[in-house]
């Protein structure tokens, strides 16, 4: 259940990261603010995407091998 919840969280973050990445090049306000604002948005999008993929990978690993869950 936890792994599924976190997987959904990761997927939602991938979608948000996509919006950040595209907004870095298309959003009028960001373009108006200049390259530093675009770079920040780009960096945030890339970081979110990377961490989301890493989280999704851990979730899938746990879902494939539930025996990893032990106390």
């Amino acid at each position, binding site marked *: 259940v936890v792994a599924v919840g976190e997987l959904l969280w990761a997927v939602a973050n991938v979608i948000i990261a996509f919006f950040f990445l595209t907004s870095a090049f298309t959003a009028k306000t960001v373009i108006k603010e200049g390259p530093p604002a675009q770079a920040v948005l780009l960096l945030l999008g890339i970081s979110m995407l990377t961490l989301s993929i890493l*989280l999704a990978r851990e979730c899938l690993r746990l879902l494939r091998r539930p025996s990893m869950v032990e106390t």
Partner: protein
Amino acid sequence: VGTAVRGLIILAALALAAAGAIAILSQAASGAQPWDPELSDNFVFFKAIPFVLALGVAFGLARSRGSSGERRDGMVRRFSGGTIVGHWLITVGFVLALPTGLWQYLGGLIDVHLPIPLYLIYRIHYIGAAIILFAVAYFVTYWWATGERSLVVPRGEWRRHLTGFAQELPARLRRMVAERLRLDLSQHPEPGRFTFYETAFSFPTWTFALALITITGFLKAMRYVYPIPGPMLYIASTLHVAAMGLLILKVLDHLRYTLPRWPLMTAMVTGWIRENALRRVLASTASRPNAPAPDAGRERDPVLAARSER
């Protein structure tokens, strides 16, 4: 603090908070002010902040009892009940405040409007922010009163903790960090109950991001009550969004780190972790030649020798 005093503190704080809530909400509902729902909510939130913080301090003081036992039946206490309550409370705050704050920013960025009024998004954001403020005041007071410093790197120990943290990183990143910080990778320091990743990286960055979002959010919330200079408000807004971005990354990283270390997840529910499981988690974080074996003696094991968090 004695039990009676604790009870009195809680009662006094609850009474004051209730009185404050009645006064604030009756002002907002009187209809005497020409504010729209969004501005009205802003005033309600800002006026509630002192009461929320005071309530957090009172509960933090009231719970400032040390836990009775450090270990039982092969289990080590990793988190106290007070820490668990604070952790899940701040989680609820994040679940409410982070998506709503993100939507306020992203919605404007991509120029999309939800079919629900914006003031409702702000209202949920304020509720989440109030819970986070309560939790921050609670945690700071609770840890101060109990003397809990398990996640804080002691003075003069930063190099040791950073070296341990570097050892936990993938090889390429490890070398890069070690070069930048001039760390000696031939050293293999032993962690305590918390991994070096938690003490040298995770906790300090949580603290920084939470402090930044709290201070900048406070400045933003007070702008209709007290005239904040334009440039300062612009900087506060920018940093508030930056802190939001940092917190989004922190949540992802936190989940990524704890999920494969399942005993850490259960410890944040029960407060306890099996000694063997804790040793395995610590041993798995770095390839330490002197890592204790799962059945190593207690007297040689820094995990078991370490004081439990209260």
